């Protein structure tokens, strides 16, 4: 091998590192372009967003964000002139298109729905998942492997196949289009991931800690609460973020089972339309706001990512 391999005979040479680095950076840059493009589009005016050739340099505008959060009505220029001075950036932007703001759009309520349902279901899934994972990790449960496989198998079902009877069941129970119904459903989907991931994390905590605590007079429950839970914090946090991402991103159930009051952001964003077709800057603005939490979470999670996406099968 080359002279640069000082430590090991098998270390890659400087040239091969440079070539590999160039290819990876090129791939990363190309694969990130669609996201940057959406981000840029959210700051374009509607005419700029559909210009040919596509505009890379443009005058930034907040029109997309204004349109995302408001509904507007077209008015005559005379009427608009008769109004007082514009009360804000959005008011001013909208008036340039001969429109006035009529009220808030549905985006905020849908976004809040997403937050409530994602956090609610994550809390329930992690709570149930932690208990079950501890049970499977520490006790001799009869048919444990079968139960664990059963728990995992519920996640393999095609969502549309599950949605048909759930749709009927929720109609009977009055749970259709309610946040509670969606929280229950997402909890059921996420709990399988939570059990599998958390079992891996709890398996890694030595039993000796609890045994020592129990010799010192703790009950099993106290030992769980005082010694296992604090040690499993990282694992619980990582699991919670994975559940949160799933519930946040989920579309199939949300699109089929919610239509109004409990609708989340993913089925709502594609329905944002302006005059004469899809209002791309507004859609891009909604997409940007929707994706930012995910980007933050991805960075926070990068060390645990592998574990999360393989249900704990690969731990590195």
């Amino acid at each position: 091998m080359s002279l640069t391999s000082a430590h090991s005979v098998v270390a890659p040479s400087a040239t091969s590192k440079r070539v590999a680095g160039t290819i990876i950076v090129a791939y990363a840059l190309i694969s990130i372009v669609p996201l940057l493009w959406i981000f840029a589009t959210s700051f374009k005016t509607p005419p700029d967003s559909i210009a040919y050739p596509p505009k890379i340099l443009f005058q930034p505008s907040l029109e997309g964000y204004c349109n995302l959060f408001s509904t507007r009505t077209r008015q005559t220029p005379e009427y608009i002139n008769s109004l007082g001075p514009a009360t804000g950036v959005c008011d001013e932007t909208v008036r340039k298109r001969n429109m006035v703001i009529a009220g808030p759009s549905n985006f905020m309520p849908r976004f809040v729905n997403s937050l409530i349902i994602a956090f609610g279901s994550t809390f329930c899934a992690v709570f149930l998942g932690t208990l079950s994972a501890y049970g499977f990790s520490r006790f001799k449960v009869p048919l444990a492997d079968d139960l664990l496989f059963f728990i995992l198998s519920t996640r393999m079902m095609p969502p549309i196949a599950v949605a048909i009877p759930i749709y009927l069941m929720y109609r009977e129970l009055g749970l259709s289009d309610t946040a509670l119904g969606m929280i229950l459903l997402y909890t059921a989907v996420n709990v399988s991931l939570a059990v599998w991931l958390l079992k891996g994390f709890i398996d890694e905590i030595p039993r000796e800690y609890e045994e020592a605590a129990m010799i010192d007079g703790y009950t099993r429950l106290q030992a769980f609460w005082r010694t296992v839970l604090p040690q499993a914090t990282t694992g619980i946090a990582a699991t919670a973020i994975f559940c949160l991402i799933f519930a946040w991103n989920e579309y199939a159930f949300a699109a089929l089972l919610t239509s109004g009051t409990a609708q989340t952001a993913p089925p709502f964003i594609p329905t944002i339309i302006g005059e004469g077709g899809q209002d791309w800057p507004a859609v891009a603005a909604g997409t940007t706001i929707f994706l930012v939490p995910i980007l933050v979470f991805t960075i926070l999670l990068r060390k645990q990512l592998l574990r999360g996406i393989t249900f704990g099968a690969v731990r590195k």
Partner: protein
Amino acid sequence: MLNRTADSVARATPEPLARKVRGISDKGLAWLFISPTILLLLAINIFPLFWAIYLSFTNFRANRPNEVVKNLGLANYKRILADQDIWIAMQTTAHFVFWTILLQTLIGFTLAWLIDRKFRGHAFWTTIILVPMMLSPAVVGNFWRFLYEPQIGLFAYAVSFVTGIPATQISMLSNVSLAPWSIIIVDTWMWTPYVMLICLAGLRSIPEYIYEAAEVDRASNWRQFWSITLPMALPFIMLAVLFRGIENFKMFDMVNLLTGGGPGSTTEVASITLKRQAFESWRTGYSSAFAIILFVAVFGLANIYVKALNKVKQR
């Protein structure tokens, strides 16, 4: 340290609660901890599954709940197996699954193999590459629709810039022969990082001393790759293929928003057919039968695959 905490905890715990909880045996506690999860899954997953099995033998329609429900026996299943459209949907799904997995495995493994060189900044660039797979497939499908727009879209512009074909002629979503590839491209863009990450774990699991031994034996790089790297990373590659295969067999959200199954039914994968039958034609019994068939297929494939996987691991 532990003793002191133990004492303070014992003192802090209210007497009646402590006495009550102390009474629970480990076995009781195990069931107390596990049963809520099992009950929830029974209520939200298994009960509906049995309901779907029941419905699959009937002519029930969810939009006409008051009509008399007739038992059809296996008629729904027979009709599905004879239905030309269902077979076309299965072919579309197979085409989609085959090409996405092939492309993602090839590109993903190559990327992992390059990243494993540990060049400077590889951790940062790896994180950048991982971003697409964390996004909502529905939102991704929707914004790729914008990128694919024939003239104004960035994709069409980039392709015409490279190939010289006028941008107006590159209509990925409305061209019958290009549409199936449009969903393959988006899925590959989104999920290659997933395969890459698992392959990377596989490559990093190979102990260095094996390469050192091969080096001593003067095995060529080519030989090392085929005799050490690939076989030892294979269980990981297969795990990635298993997960992607199951996920893409069920694919719904991205395709639904990108093409909606169109033009015509050229990108109508199984889940889209299922949605059209169940929630647009309201043939609830018929679509339940199709759902059961899909479910059994996913399960069967996964089982066969897991067995193969274990064999590879044992070697």
